[in-house]
């Protein structure tokens, strides 16, 4: 039993989040009554970093938190840190990330003649050519940023590079920069591009500093993004509380997905306590009308960011196995059958399915192909990894 009683005698749940648009279902559940309806006093605790989320979950300062798709896997496997069995019980939706390149590269990209503004692959090929020219001229490698070693951003950026014939480990330098420092780092010329969640990509375009060349769903529409993470022991100690929390989050996600609530959602996110970005910038991600170039070019991407509702919020263990495959591909963890088997214990669709009353199978359909035409087969990870390797170089 969780004996912590808060407002109106409701059970207290302390939830960590980062200032990102896709924290919306959590913010809405806390601020628009879905948590209260389940007798939960949902306390939002904004965190300065993913490392802080991990540490505070581990010591119990936080009960649950928004996590990057790879974090519950890394924690459960004990990669680079304490081994803490962690459960992902809710998927915050799909999409929401962009890959952008610095204004300083535009002329060079134009010069490759690859038509870099025509699509994600054309942009990747143009970047590949530019990188080769620079290497031949003895220039320093380009610096590309993402947000955390176990972020989907890291894997998506690397996937895009590799699919374009660029080796992410040797042809470029990949660094971590916190989303809130991305725009300043571009301005200072410290990075030449990045993969980041909204609103931070649109803010860079708005400042005239970068162009968006690929969206998360260009790389793989089924790629997992943020999940609700908690220590496994916490979920086992509080089964009823977790059920109610999942129902509240699911109601929050459905509310976010409803266009009738968009204005209210934008103002909620614009609040300094939540994301704290200008309304007109936040609106871009929520409507899918993305300004992708400082010259005002718009890309209509209605599926850019989906909060879910329905069965989309079920954590997809098959898609999470793809995340694990990328961790293996880039050497964060060695391939092992046990690690692959473990994904099903971390990504638990049954918890939300039980709470919301729908069947636990995530997919009514097969997964879509990835941007390079490969299909991911979760039952044959080793073979998939073998197929991927030749696409680098």
């Amino acid at each position: 039993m969780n004996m912590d009683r808060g407002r109106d005698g409701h059970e207290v749940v302390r939830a960590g989040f980062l200032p990102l648009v896709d924290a919306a279902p959590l913010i809405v559940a806390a601020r628009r009554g879905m948590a209260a309806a389940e007798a939960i006093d949902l306390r939002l605790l904004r965190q300065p970093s993913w490392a802080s989320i991990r540490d505070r979950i581990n010591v119990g300062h936080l009960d649950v938190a928004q996590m990057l798709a790879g974090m519950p896997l890394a924690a459960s496997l004990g990669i680079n840190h304490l081994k803490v069995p962690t459960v992902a019980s809710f998927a915050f939706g799909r999409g929401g990330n962009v890959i952008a390149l610095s204004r300083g590269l535009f002329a060079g990209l134009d010069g490759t003649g690859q038509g870099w503004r025509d699509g994600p692959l054309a942009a990747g090929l143009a970047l590949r050519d530019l990188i080769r020219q620079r290497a031949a001229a003895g220039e320093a490698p380009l610096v590309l940023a993402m947000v955390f070693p176990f972020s989907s951003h890291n894997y998506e950026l690397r996937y895009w590079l590799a699919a374009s014939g660029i080796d992410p480990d040797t042809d470029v330098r990949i660094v971590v920069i916190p989303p809130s420092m991305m725009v300043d780092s571009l301005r200072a010329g410290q990075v030449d591009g990045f993969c980041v969640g909204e609103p931070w990509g649109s803010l860079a375009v708005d400042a005239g500093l970068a162009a968006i060349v690929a969206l998360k769903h260009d790389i793989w529409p089924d790629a997992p993004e943020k999940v609700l993470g908690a220590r496994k022991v916490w979920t086992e100690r509080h089964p009823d509380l977790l059920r109610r929390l999942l129902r509240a989050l699911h109601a929050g996600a459905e509310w976010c997905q409803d266009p009738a609530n968009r204005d209210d959602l934008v103002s909620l996110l614009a609040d300094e306590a939540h994301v704290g970005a200008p309304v007109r910038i936040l609106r871009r991600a929520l409507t899918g009308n993305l300004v992708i170039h400082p010259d005002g070019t718009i890309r209509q991407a209605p599926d850019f960011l989906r909060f879910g509702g329905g069965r989309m919020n079920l954590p997809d263990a098959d898609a999470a196995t793809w995340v694990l495959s990328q961790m293996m591909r880039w050497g964060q963890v060695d391939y092992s059958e046990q690690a692959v088997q473990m994904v099903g214990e971390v990504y638990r669709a049954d918890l939300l399915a039980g709470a919301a009353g729908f069947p636990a199978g995530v997919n009514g359909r097969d997964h879509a192909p990835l941007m390079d035409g490969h299909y991911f087969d979760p039952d044959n990870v080793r073979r998939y990894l073998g197929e991927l390797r030749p696409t680098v170089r």
Partner: protein
Amino acid sequence: MQKEALKVAVIDSNPVRAAILVDGLTGAGEVDAHLITDTFDLQRRIFAMDPDVIVIDLEDHSRDVLEQMFQVSRDVRRPIAMFVDHSDRAMIDQAIEAGVSAYIVDGLVQSRVRSIVDMAISRFNAFSRLRAELEETRGALEDRKIIERAKGILMRSKGVDEPAAYGLLRRTAMNEKKKIADIARSVVTAAELLA
């Protein structure tokens, strides 16, 4: 026994807290402590400094930058998060409670690292205590000012002297089981409304 000084990078955007930590570390000897208050381009700075131990405010948003350095072995010697390879949970809990995070280059003698982290924890805790005391003092000062104002109002409107006005506030506070400052605050508010 002569030991080589450990190079410690202290990353803290709070200059006062950082100064007392650097002071403590240097005073303890055999430590060469460097302060980083501006975390812009942190990876390059750390690379240039090449520290043995990095102590960083747990709340600093640059921590994710350091986490990446676990993986980039060609840039810097690989630091690891504190005590990951030793399951010293009590130490980790204490550190996080105090708001301290640390990264340590592999292969250092555990006891030397431990004394540095212990020092960071105690200095961080001392700093929080100081700040709490300061806030308390500030609060007490505010209370005293408001009580003075309420006494003045009562003296004027009721035509009583200062001890009587104070006695009135104190009795009311006792009867209503409230603090004198709270009663004084309502007197001042009421007077402002009625003015």
